[in-house]
C-alpha cells in the first residue's frame, strides 16, 4: 500500500509586524506499486498513445515514431486498457478497430501484436489539429467508465493548425480528466504550445531532437506511467481564517504554479490537483500571509496535506512564531531560498528566449545573464550546461553573458523545455 510523508522546511520565526510565511513541503510517496495495482478507488488504468501522422513527418521521423510507439506498447502492463490514435487534421482511432462501444482494448500478447501492426501501417499525410486529437482521446477514455486513471502520450513534429481558441477549449475539456505527457520531434513545433498542454494536463514536455532518441523517450515515459500505483492525489492547503494563500507552487522536479488551480475543499482549505504518483518525491512552495500578531505568539500558518479521495494520507505543519530576536527572524530557510532562485531561473530562461525570438537582444542578454547567475548560485548544472549552448559566459558570478552568434535551434528548444526542471538542494 502506498504511503505518503510530508516534511516541512521553513524558518517559522517572523519579526515584529511580519506577515509572510514561506515553506517548502517535500511530499514523498513510497510503496506505490504499479499502475492499477493499489490505486485508490480500485479503478482500471487507461493508456492512449497519440502519434502525429501529418504530412510534415519525414520518412525517418515517421519510422522512428512508429518504433517509439511500439516500444511504449511493450511497456504497458497486461490488463491495462489502451488505445492508439493517429493525428492529422482529424484524429483517427487506429486501435482497437471499433466504430462504437468501448474503445479501449485490454492489453495482452495478442492485442499488443495487433496494435503494433496497426502502428506499422501509419502513413504521413495531412495537417495538424492537436485539439481534435485531445478530444478523441477524451471520448475514448469516456467509453470505458471503470477506467479512472487516465494517461496519454502525445507526439507531434509541428505547429498546431487550429485556431488558438480551438486548442484552448480542447485543453480545457481534458483538464482534470486525463494526464498527458507531450513530446516534440525535431525543431518545427512550438515549445509554448506543448507546454500549455502538458502543464494543464499534469504532464511533462520535452524535445526529441533526433529520431535515434525516439525509442528511449517513449519507453521511459510509459515506464514512468506504469509505475504510478496511486491514481490521483490532491494537495490540500489549509490556512487560518483571515489569512491569504499567496501562492502554491510545485518546485521540484519541475516548477508548476498551482495557485490558480485551487478548488475549494472547505472555506479555509483549497485543493490542488497533482495527478498520479509513483515512488517519488515532489517539493511544494507554499506562501501564506497572516495578520501580524504580538511578539511571543505562535500559530499555525498552514496545514499542507496530501489527500487520496477523502482520506488525508500525510500532513505537514507550517508554523509562524513572532520574535524580536533578529538572529532568529533574519534567517531565510535554505530550501526556500534555493527554490525561490530556481523559480526565478525558470522565468528568466523563458523570458530571455522569448525576448531573443522577438529580436530584443538587450533584454535577452540581461535575462539569460541572470539565468546563468542563478543556475550557478543554486547549483543547477543541467541548466548551466544548456545555457552555455545559447550564450557565451564572461562572468558566471556577475551574470555577464553574450548571445552566441549561431545557435542550434534544438539547443535553444531544449533549454526552453528544460527551463522548469529544478535541481534539488545539495546535501551538505
Amino acid at each position, binding site marked *: 500500500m502506498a504511503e505518503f510523508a510530508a516534511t516541512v522546511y521553513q524558518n517559522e520565526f517572523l519579526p515584529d509586524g511580519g506577515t509572510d510565511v514561506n515553506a517548502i513541503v517535500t511530499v514523498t510517496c513510497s510503496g506505490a506499486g504499479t499502475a492499477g495495482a493499489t490505486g485508490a478507488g480500485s479503478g482500471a488504468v487507461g493508456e492512449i498513445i497519440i502519434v502525429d501522422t501529418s504530412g510534415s513527418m519525414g520518412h525517418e521521423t515517421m519510422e522512428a515514431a512508429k518504433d517509439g510507439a511500439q516500444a511504449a506498447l511493450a511497456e504497458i502492463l497486461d490488463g491495462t486498457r489502451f488505445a492508439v490514435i493517429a493525428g492529422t487534421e482529424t484524429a483517427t482511432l487506429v486501435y482497437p478497430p471499433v466504430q462504437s462501444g468501448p474503445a479501449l482494448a485490454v492489453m495482452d500478447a495478442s492485442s499488443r501484436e495487433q496494435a503494433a501492426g496497426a502502428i506499422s501501417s501509419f502513413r504521413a499525410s495531412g495537417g495538424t489539429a492537436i485539439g481534435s486529437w485531445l478530444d478523441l482521446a477524451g471520448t475514448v477514455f469516456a467509453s470505458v467508465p471503470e477506467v479512472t486513471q487516465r494517461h496519454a502520450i502525445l507526439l507531434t513534429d509541428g505547429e498546431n493548425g487550429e485556431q488558438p481558441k480551438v486548442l484552448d477549449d480542447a485543453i480545457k475539456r481534458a483538464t482534470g480528466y486525463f494526464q498527458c505527457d507531450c513530446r516534440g520531434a525535431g525543431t518545427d513545433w512550438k515549445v509554448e504550445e506543448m507546454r500549455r498542454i502538458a502543464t494543464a494536463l499534469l504532464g511533462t514536455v520535452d524535445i526529441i531532437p533526433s529520431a535515434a532518441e525516439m525509442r528511449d523517450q517513449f519507453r521511459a515515459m510509459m515506464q514512468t506511467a506504469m509505475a504510478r500505483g496511486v491514481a490521483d492525489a490532491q494537495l490540500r492547503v489549509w*490556512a*487560518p481564517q483571515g489569512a491569504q494563500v499567496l501562492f502554491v507552487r510545485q518546485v521540484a522536479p519541475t516548477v508548476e504554479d498551482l495557485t490558480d488551480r485551487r478548488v475549494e475543499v472547505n472555506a479555509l482549505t483549497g485543493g490542488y490537483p497533482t495527478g498520479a504518483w509513483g515512488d517519488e518525491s515532489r517539493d511544494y512552495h507554499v506562501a501564506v500571509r497572516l495578520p501580524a*500578531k504580538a511578539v511571543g*505568539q505562535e*500559530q*499555525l*500558518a498552514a496545514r499542507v496535506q496530501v489527500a487520496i479521495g477523502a482520506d488525508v494520507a500525510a500532513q505537514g*505543519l507550517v*508554523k509562524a512564531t513572532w*520574535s524580536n530576536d533578529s538572529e532568529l527572524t533574519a534567517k531565510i530557510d535554505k530550501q526556500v531560498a534555493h527554490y525561490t532562485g530556481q523559480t526565478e531561473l525558470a522565468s528568466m530562461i523563458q523570458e530571455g528566449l522569448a525576448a531573443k525570438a522577438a529580436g530584443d537582444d538587450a533584454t535577452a542578454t540581461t535575462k539569460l545573464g541572470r539565468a546563468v547567475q542563478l543556475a550557478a548560485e543554486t547549483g543547477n548544472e543541467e541548466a548551466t550546461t544548456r545555457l552555455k549552448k545559447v550564450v557565451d559566459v564572461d562572468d558566471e558570478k556577475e551574470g555577464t553573458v553574450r548571445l552566441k552568434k549561431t545557435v542550434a535551434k534544438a539547443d535553444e528548444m531544449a533549454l526552453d523545455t528544460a527551463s522548469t526542471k529544478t535541481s534539488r538542494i545539495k546535501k551538505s
Partner: protein
Amino acid sequence: MSVTDNRACPSCGTVAQGESNFCENCGAALSASPVDTLRVLVTEPALSEPSPMDDLGSGPISRATSQTSAPTAPPTAIPACASCGGTVGPDGYCEQCGVKALSPRDHFREQAAPWVAGVCDKGIRHHRNEDAMTMVASPDGTAADRRAVLIVLDGVSNTDDSQIGSLAGARAALDALRVPLPRGMGTPDGVLSAVTRAMSEAAKAANAQVTAAAPADAKNPASATYCAAVLEGDMLTYANVGDSRIYWLPDGEPGVQLSVDDSAAQDQMDAGVPRAVAETSAQAHAITKWLGRDSEDHTPRVGQLALTTPGWLLVCSDGLWNYASEPSALAAQIAKAASTEPAALALALTDFANTSGGQDNITTVLARVTTVQNADQTSTATSTTREQPHG
C-alpha cells in the same frame, strides 16, 4: 487519600498523587482543566467582543456539542481554542484560527486565594516548561492570622526529565510547609534557627522528589533551583537554592531582592563586579547550588523579614528577572500594569517577559500584602532583615 481519589493519567497511566492537575510522569493534564488554564499570550478579547462560543449554531460543531451527542468520546477531550473558541485539531492547533493550544503543563495559572496567584509559562524559546510552582493561602489576606506559602522550582534545562522533577519537588515542599512554622523558644534567635530547620526540611523533601525524577541511569539527572516564601501574619520567612528569586516590593518605596543567588554572577558581584556586567557575562546563568542527584549541597539560605507596609511579595524564576533584575525595574513593570489583582499582575509580568524575548520559562508567583488589621500578634516584627546563612 482514599483509593477512589486516585486518578490515573489518561496519557501514561501513572496514578496521580494529591490535588495535582498534571501527571507527574508525563505532564499530561489529569482532568478537564478549566478553560482559563489555556491561554493565548497577549491577545485577550475585550469584554464587549462577542464570543465565538455564543454562536454555536452557525459555526463548525464545537467540542462541547460533539460530546453531548457522543458520550463515548475519549476523556482527554481537547478544550476549545482559547483564542477564537474553534475546535483544536489533533495536531494541537486551532482548526479555525491556527493558534497553538498550549498544553496545560506549558502554561498554567493558579490562584490560591484572592491575594495570592501565579503564572507558570513556557516562554518562547524553550520547547517545554520545566519551571514549576505551587502555593497555598488562607482566604483572607487582611486577616491577622493570614498565611501563604509560595514555591517556585526552575528545572535545569540541560538535564533529563527536569519538568517532572521540578513539579514533584514543588509539591513536596508545599506539603512540608502546610503546617505553621515552628517558633522554637520564641526568642528572635530561637525563632530563626527553628524556621531555618523547617525551611531546610522542605527543601530536603523537594530534593528527594527531584532526585527521584531521574532514572537510575540518567546521564544528566534532573536538577532544579528552589525558592520558598512563607508569610505568617506579617512575618515573611524565605529560603532559596540556585538563582530563582524572592523580592519584596513595597508600594512607593524601594524594593529589595531578599534571596541571594547561588550563581556565578552572584560570585562575581560579591567580588565587586557591577550587577549589569555580572548578569550578562557568559557564565551568568551557571548556578553553584541546586537540587538533584548530583547536588553536593542543597541547604537553602534562609531569612526573615517583617512586612509592615503594603506591597508585593514576588517569587519568580530567572525567566522573569532576566528582563528586570533590579527591584526598581520590577517595580516599574508593576506600576505599568497598575493592578492590585495578583492574577492579573502575574499575567502582565509574564507577558512583559515574553515580549522582551521569552528566552526561558517564566514563573511569577505573587502575594498582595496589605497591612494586617490587628497586628498585635506579630509583636516581634521589625523592619530589619534577619538572615541565617546555613551550613
